């Protein structure tokens, strides 16, 4: 099943009188249950692509289609709802809320949508124990290791049961052992829950877990291998 499609997307910036092309007619398709990696040097446009797919950025032309919905058709106000329901973000350095415990980090996502039900509680606990955090429900982010924090961030991204998972350098602050673990966990969850996932990374060692690898260079996306 086709979950995510990027069609002919171009993004240009005006900077100091010259035009910079961050994305140049990028097209890609991600199916449910697929983890796709995007690699490339910094400044190549990987993050721009991720932001556009995550409805954080409006492309200059082209479109993103998630579950048959075109992002460019959404109004400003609908974008946050779209992010809440359709996108799960795994952010760099986890970006957890410092004053919420592990369980509340996940329930926050449900709070944004309205009420937290007991089913949501169960689901959150299920996710956390899948990721090996069943003993850390009540811990605050500052009491967790970097790997644990990143696992919480992964659980949070899955919490809204969205169709698309976007991971922005999820292994950036981890040693390679933890990094492997984290990517493996993302891959497992993506397969198990049938998500369409894109992971942006610098780290070429992580690619073994990915179904396909794209390389981004100067705004041009090409399929590798």
């Amino acid at each position, binding site marked *: 099943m086709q979950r995510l499609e990027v069609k002919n997307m171009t993004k240009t*910036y005006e900077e100091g009188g010259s035009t910079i092309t*961050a994305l140049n007619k990028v097209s890609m398709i991600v199916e449910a249950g697929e983890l796709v990696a995007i690699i490339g040097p910094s*400044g190549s*446009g990987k*993050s*721009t692509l*991720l*932001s556009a797919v*995550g409805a*954080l*950025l409006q492309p200059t032309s082209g479109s993103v289609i998630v579950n048959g919905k075109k992002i460019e058709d959404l109004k400003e*106000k609908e974008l*946050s*709802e779209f*992010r*809440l*329901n359709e*996108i*799960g*973000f795994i*952010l*760099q*350095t986890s*970006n957890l*809320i*410092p*004053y*919420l415990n592990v369980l*509340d980090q996940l329930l*926050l*996502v449900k*709070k*944004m*949508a309205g009420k937290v039900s007991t089913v949501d509680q169960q689901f959150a606990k299920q996710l956390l124990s899948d990721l090996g955090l069943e003993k850390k429900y009540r811990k*605050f982010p500052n009491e967790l290791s970097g790997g644990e924090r990143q696992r919480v961030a992964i659980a*949070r*991204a899955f919490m*809204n049961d969205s169709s698309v998972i976007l991971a*922005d*350098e999820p292994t950036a602050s981890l040693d390679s052992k933890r990094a492997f673990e984290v990517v493996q966990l993302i891959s497992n969850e993506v397969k198990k829950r049938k998500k369409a996932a894109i992971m942006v990374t610098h780290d070429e060692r992580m690619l073994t877990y990915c179904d396909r690898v794209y390389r981004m260079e100067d705004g041009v996306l090409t399929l590798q291998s």
Partner: protein
Amino acid sequence: MFLALKEIKHAKLRYTMITMIIVLIAWLTFILSGLGNGLSTLSAATIKNLNANYVVYGEGSGAKFSKSLISASLKEKIDLQSEVEDSALFGSAMAAVSKEGINEKTDIALLGIEAGSFIEPKVIEGKKLDKNIKNGVLANNSLQDKGYAIGDEIKVDSSTIVLKIVGFVENETYNHLPVLFSTVEQWRAYQFAAPGANNGIEDVVNAIVIQSSNLDAESFNKKIGGIETATKNQAINAMPGYMEENGTIVMMLVFLIVISAFVIAVFFYVLTIQKSQQFGVMKAIGANNGFLTKAIVSQVFVISLVGILIGVVLTYLTALVFPAGMPFNLNPTLVVLYGFALLLISVLSSFVCVRQVSKVDPLTALGRVE
């Protein structure tokens, strides 16, 4: 509420400090309101207590009892008017009294009223005024603290008059002084002892107090002639010093409330800027502006509410240790009113942050903006 409470619980010191500021402001606000209320009671309690709607003064007196002299005979004409339900004579004078065995003289207000009229206050101890006991007076119970008791004969300074306390009343002060109610005749005997002091008006009084549910002052003045009619509120405001005292206190209260608005606005503005990154993350994972706004506003609400409630408790505790003579009188209605005003202003001031929240770009969550 979810985020608001969790965060308060987590950053106790930070929120305790801002709560303390609100506590102090609320505390001061309530004490000032008590003081203001106490002062205005002292200045005009008797007039406030009058079970009446209008006061008739002599023309040109500017609603001041001390400047007004009219003849009691006007009462007959006033009573004939259809809009008047009842009327009563009223006279006021300042005096100093003493009694044997007490060295210190006491300043009092000597008010002349008709025995049995509707403005005669309720007696809490002793008997009512009696026409047949010419020198009988009702005294405010604060005189009890100075050593006066029922049956005491008291000398009025600068005259040969001797009054006799027949009963005590409570909460009756006039012009910041405790009140002695006497008959109109006794009052005249003191106030107009010097020939000509009554401007040659027969049966003179200061004012006539009227009960009426519907009276047009202007046409009423014309009908009676030579008078000036004021509402009870105008009469209270015209009491010497009343407006000035109240104005000062109200000005301080307004300043306090404005200060609290700014303190809270600035505090939460800085906090919001500090938390931009967090808000960015939350926006990236789907929070809309409304969700974040609610979190901030409910936080301000909780903190202000707790601060104000603690302020109320502290105010009532301090009221217990204030000396008895202090004009401090907490009015629960006013406490509730100022409490709500502070709460409302605090919550409104937190809306300054709302703009800041809506400006946060969720892209910051990605750690770099390209």
